[in-house]
């Protein structure tokens, strides 16, 4: 709490008007030309302000709209999917088919999320040629960090690669998981068996595949997938029975997804007679699932089992909330219900401006490279603002870094220009900061020009010829050291190649409510009822309206096509205006 780093946030213009900003180049700030309602200063404490203030590093700049773009007014597009563990790119078709998990051998430990490695259960071969010999025997996934191993849940693999595929076929404990196809076949077989109608014929027909099947139990326990598929098959057959051919000519095989089925369902609910009355009369024939074959699961039995297990093995065999969260579809209540977690894929994204659809940022599609093809970040277009106290904190007598109320403090605002053209900056601040505790703010030099971000070498060579700028700089510094230099109104404090510092004087407000009457603002008088300093209300934040003007080369494409004659006059005046918030410091309470 005591340490406070000054900050600067920039407001994205996208929140100023609800309608999407059109080409607002050369726009005047909205505060000027709109109704009096909008002639307010930006209040950094307003609840909405939270959503529009960003540090400069988070912002983009659209070259086409000539506007700042924040993360809220850009569109994301996924360039590639890749696994963070093996760094293999995953094609989007695989992502759609297999889900957003790595389908190779990358897994996380279900206990501690560390990456799992594949190792053999057998001792590595030793002796002659041990280096060449491949490891044999069953393989397990084990965690180098907490030494969890897939052996604990009874899973072993035959091959050391393609673990994802192998794991998909094995249940915890080693039993096989049926694929959807096998499951369907199994279900149909069982149904035949269960109905008992034609058991004998089938048995006779196919004696070779007559594997001993477990006795059919209408209450048998199903895992989530087979329950789902059973239920789905059941309802599909019910729907098909209810209306063999729908009004639109689709059969029930299409399930819920088909438009025909959807309109039929809608027809059921609205009771409209646009569709056939046949469906209406038949809808009563649907029934619910009755047994495990049809996907019915009665849960209490599993709860009792869990209780017994909890009694027997104790608390430490249960999984924690975060561990369970990895398995939303199954109730992994115990440690041995957990399974290795395949790595979630990551994405590389490109960003587009919402207004003009131009790309603001586009990373190289190769996973291993961190370069960007296009990167229009605001840092390269907007002067950055940094803030520091004018007098070094060591010389100040106050013990803490808190601002003393009612005592003027001077801060140095440094504007650094990233553009290759010099920039005219105009600052505007309200004389009193908004909020219940109004501090007085004065920018001593609200209008100045910041030099271009030219080549540093070039500048150094030029300075050799005329030492005027450096000598000026030195003088100011020397004066400052002597402590005689006073910040003068209307003058820049210090100036460098592409930066300028100006002085801001702040008189922090008193946080006490018993001030003299004339010091009280209107709002404070209203808020008299609640005499507590709210959270972070002691932070002094100054809204600053910044207007930047510069002359840029006009759009390159057009000028290039029209030849040299145009290029000479190809300077275009640009203007950008936005609100910033300077977080200065905390005011001491008295």
């Amino acid at each position, binding site marked *: 709490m005591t340490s406070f780093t000054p900050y600067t946030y920039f407001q994205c213009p996208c929140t100023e008007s609800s309608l999407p900003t059109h080409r607002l180049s050369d726009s005047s700030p909205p505060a000027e030309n709109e109704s009096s309602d909008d002639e307010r200063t930006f209040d950094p404490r307003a609840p909405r302000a939270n959503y529009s203030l960003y540090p400069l590093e988070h912002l983009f700049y659209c070259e086409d709209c000539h506007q700042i773009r924040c993360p809220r007014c850009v569109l994301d597009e996924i360039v590639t999917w890749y696994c963070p563990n093996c760094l293999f790119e995953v094609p989007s078709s695989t992502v759609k088919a297999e889900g957003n998990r790595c389908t190779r051998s990358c897994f996380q430990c279900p*206990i*501690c999320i560390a990456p799992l490695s594949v190792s053999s*259960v057998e*001792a590595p071969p*030793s002796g002659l040629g041990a280096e060449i010999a491949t490891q044999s025997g069953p393989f*397990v996934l*084990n965690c180098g*960090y*907490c*030494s*969890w*191993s897939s*052996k*604990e849940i009874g899973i072993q693999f035959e091959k050391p690669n393609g673990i994802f595929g192998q794991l998909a076929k094995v249940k915890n404990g080693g039993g096989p998981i049926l694929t959807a196809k096998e499951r369907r076949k199994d279900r149909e077989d069982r149904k035949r068996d269960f109905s008992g109608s034609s058991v004998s014929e089938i048995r006779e027909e196919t004696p070779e595949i007559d594997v001993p099947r477990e006795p059919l139990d209408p209450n048998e326990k199903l895992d989530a997938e087979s329950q789902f598929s059973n239920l789905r098959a059941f309802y599909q057959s019910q729907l098909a029975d209810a209306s063999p051919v729908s009004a639109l000519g689709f059969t029930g095989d299409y399930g819920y997804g088909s438009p025909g089925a959807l309109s039929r369902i809608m027809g059921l609910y609205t009771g409209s007679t646009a569709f056939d009355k046949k469906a209406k009369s038949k809808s009563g024939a649907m029934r619910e699932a009755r047994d495990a074959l049809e996907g019915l699961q009665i849960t209490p039995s599993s709860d009792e089992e869990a209780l017994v297990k909890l009694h027997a093995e104790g608390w*430490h065999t249960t999984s924690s909330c975060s561990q369970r969260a990895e398995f939303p579809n199954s109730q992994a209540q115990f*440690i041995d219900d957990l399974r290795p977690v395949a790595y979630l894929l990551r994405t590389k994204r490109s960003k587009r401006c919402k207004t003009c659809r131009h790309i603001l940022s586009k990373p190289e599609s190769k996973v291993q490279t961190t370069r960007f093809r296009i990167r229009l970040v605001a840092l390269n277009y907007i002067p950055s603002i940094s803030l520091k106290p004018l007098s070094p904190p060591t010389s100040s007598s106050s013990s803490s870094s808190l601002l003393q109320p009612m005592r003027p403090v001077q801060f140095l605002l440094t504007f650094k220009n990233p553009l290759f053209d010099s920039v005219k900056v105009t600052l505007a601040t309200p004389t009193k900061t908004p909020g219940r505790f109004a501090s007085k703010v004065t920018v001593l030099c609200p209008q100045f020009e910041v030099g271009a971000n030219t080549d540093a070498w070039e500048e150094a060579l030029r300075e050799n010829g005329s030492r005027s700028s450096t000598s000026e700089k030195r003088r100011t510094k020397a004066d400052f050291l002597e402590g005689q230099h006073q910040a003068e109104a209307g003058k820049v404090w210090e100036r460098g190649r592409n930066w300028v510092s100006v002085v801001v004087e702040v008189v922090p407000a008193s946080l006490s409510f018993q001030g003299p009457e004339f010091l009280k603002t209107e709002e404070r008088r209203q808020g008299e009822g609640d005499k507590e300093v709210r959270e972070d209300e002691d932070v002094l934040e100054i809204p600053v309206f910044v207007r930047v003007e510069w002359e840029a080369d006009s759009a390159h494409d057009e000028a290039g096509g029209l030849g040299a004659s145009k290029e000479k006059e190809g300077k275009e005046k640009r203007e950008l205006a936005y609100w910033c918030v300077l977080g200065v410091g905390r005011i001491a309470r008295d």
Partner: protein
Amino acid sequence: MSNKRQSMMPPAPKPPTSLSSSIVIAEHASLTGTKLIMIGSNTVIHPRAKLNSAYAPITIGSTCIISERSQIGILKEPEDEEEAEPVVIENGVVVEVGAIVEARRVGEGSVIEVNARIGKGAVLGKHCKIGPLCEVAEGEVLPDFTVIFGNGMRRIDNSGVEDLKMKMVARQVEVLRKLIPSNIAKFQ
């Protein structure tokens, strides 16, 4: 206390030792103190490992690996009159870089990871694993196969691969034997 300086002085007070002839002990390992230090066969002591028997004797079993900058032995003088309990490290224990072991007993096949710390009088069961930067409090008794990891989280490891792990340690010792020049004579 500064071991570096002591080793440079000619009459370095050598602790009484009982070293197996098959151990690998680097010249820059530091054995200090006044009580007995016993090291079993095939154990590897890395350079800059510190074994301090000033307050209690140290016993290290066979096929152990004591890494560099690890500290074995009671570090502080016991407050009351009674003797500090001796430090016993059983067979096949790996003490990683920078770990501090003041335990009464470290069970067979345990691994003490980088910069872990085991307090005075603690007893570790067999095949325990103390994760990096984890701590075991003074006098704590851990059952066999305990794994401490992360932010003090614990579990019992029942993967059943302890034999394999012991074999791997033995193989590691074989490699280290080739890498670390041994100088037993200096410490006898």
